[in-house]
């Protein structure tokens, strides 16, 4: 009998796994189950659907033909139960589907704030999925003002989306600046100033105490300091929680997510996990971590697919790497950059547009940014981490230098001089280094 592969979750991880299985086997019977009506779409793209940079129909990376080519059986359904001994899953409508190998790629969902009312009222939104984005777009047609709660990327994306739709947006920050555990003060201020220029009202040291309502609808927020702000939308993005309910119910080993080995295999050998729901080993920190990023979800999905079909190659999590766009500035975050004191850190080098230039070999990147900023976390012999904002010419070189722990002793002192032309120094160093390392 043909082996049956069942995948729960039609996101980046699930679809990549299906692709990998099909690449490896023409016969495999692959079933992909997703509970979202619209199927596979770009979850990060939702932010640009909100800002109206892309129309709805462009959210979908795969067309019908693409799925036909992969010959998948696709089911719009919710898996409510797994029978690991008997090898089948149960769907919301009672149907049962048998499998030989199962992948759990159920992703993560937004954490709920601990405010009363957050579930029931009209006007309370998050940005997890397609339906949420639709909700926000719909609500913002009528809304005058909104309050956004949360300190990371998704919160900022909601802020930008609302503001772009003409909704006056109040952005609540618990602390004294934006994303203080990753950005340094200058970087936070760059972002905040750009938001303010767009008309966003940033409230520092501010937390919501109560959501005010009238006839089931949001009409305002009262802060802990007692201030009242009128609004008809309250959006929150305060973190995510892996969807581990199914895994829990069958006793898989779990911490925050499903613990998997380097073949994405859970504590039950024929059940695998990948993407936002999986917790993988991180050789840098020596701990099991959740990546919750699109790129790693794809790689993990692929690794899981290959492992399920018996052609596994170990998945090794790379150096931390996140690309985003903050208030219009493309930003790459590589390696260790946080405020938590790194014992190897010997200094920080910063540079701005004046010291920028083109890399010696002919490539042309995006470069129409009004602000370009570079930060290097410098250790004894190597660069520990970096933030690249605006012009991205150096982000690929830096990723290599950081991941491969390139010895930068020869330029270390120059990098740490005041007003050092750090972009030039890195570009020149890279040009030499890559020759020796065949990149």
């Amino acid at each position, binding site marked *: 009998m043909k082996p049956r592969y069942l995948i729960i979750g039609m996101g980046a991880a699930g679809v990549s796994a299906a692709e990998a299985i099909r690449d490896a086997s023409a016969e495999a019977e692959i079933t992909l189950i997703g509970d979202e009506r619209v199927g596979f779409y770009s979850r990060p793209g939702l932010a640009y659907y909100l800002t109206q940079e892309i129309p709805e129909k*462009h959210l979908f990376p795969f067309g019908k033909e693409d799925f036909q080519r992969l010959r998948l059986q696709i089911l719009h359904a919710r898996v409510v139960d797994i029978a690991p001994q008997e090898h089948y899953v149960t769907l919301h409508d009672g149907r049962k589907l048998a499998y030989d190998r199962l992948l759990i790629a159920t992703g993560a969902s937004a954490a709920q704030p601990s405010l009363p009312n957050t579930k029931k009222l009209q006007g309370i939104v998050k940005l997890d999925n397609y339906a949420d984005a639709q909700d926000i777009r719909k609500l913002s047609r009528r809304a005058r003002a909104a309050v956004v709660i949360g300190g990371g990327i998704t919160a900022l994306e909601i802020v930008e989306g609302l503001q772009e739709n003409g909704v006056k947006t109040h952005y609540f920050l618990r602390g004294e600046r934006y994303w203080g555990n990753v950005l340094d003060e200058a970087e936070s201020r760059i972002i905040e100033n750009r938001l303010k220029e767009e008309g966003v009202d940033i409230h520092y040291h501010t937390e919501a105490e109560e959501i005010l309502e009238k006839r089931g609808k949001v009409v305002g927020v009262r802060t802990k300091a007692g201030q009242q702000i009128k609004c008809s939308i309250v959006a929150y993005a305060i973190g995510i929680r892996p969807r581990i309910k199914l895994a829990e119910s069958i006793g898989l080993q779990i911490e925050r997510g499903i613990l998997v080995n380097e073949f994405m295999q859970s504590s039950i050998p024929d059940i695998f996990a990948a993407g936002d729901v999986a917790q993988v080993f991180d050789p840098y920190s020596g701990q099991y971590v959740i990546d919750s990023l699109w790129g790693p979800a794809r790689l993990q999905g692929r690794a899981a697919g290959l492992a399920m079909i018996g052609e596994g190659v170990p998945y090794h999590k790379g150096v931390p790497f996140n690309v985003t766009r903050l208030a219009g500035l493309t930003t790459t975050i590589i390696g260790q950059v946080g405020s938590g004191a790194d014992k190897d850190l010997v200094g920080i080098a910063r540079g701005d547009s004046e010291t920028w*230039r083109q890399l010696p070999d002919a490539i*042309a990147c995006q470069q129409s940014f009004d602000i370009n900023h570079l930060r290097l976390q410098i250790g004894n012999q190597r660069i520990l981490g970096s933030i690249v904002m605006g012009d991205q010419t150096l982000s690929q070189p830096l990723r290599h230098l950081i991941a491969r722990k390139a010895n930068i002793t020869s330029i270390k002192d120059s990098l740490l001089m005041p007003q050092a032309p750090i972009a030039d120094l890195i570009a020149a160093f890279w040009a030499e280094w890559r020759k020796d390392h065949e990149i």
Partner: protein
Amino acid sequence: MTLRNYLRRETTRRQALVKGYVVPDSSRCVQCGICSYNCPIGIDVRRHAWVGSPVKDNHCLTCGECVDRCPRGVLQFERTNIFDEKKFKLEDKK
């Protein structure tokens, strides 16, 4: 930026645009579709970014719309070297 740097940069950029083709760094891409949506001749740049292949489409105008609008800095122009250019021509004729 100093004037010298600026001029040097403009020259390399123009060379890269004229002779180059769009190359994705897939690991940065989030499949948002902004590139494909903005390509004036409808090249599905996003698919190139998914599979990690350069846009070797003869019709590409090297207009840079996709490169400039991508919110993740996935795309850049890289100059083809002569060897590659020959190779592409052979492939195109097939």
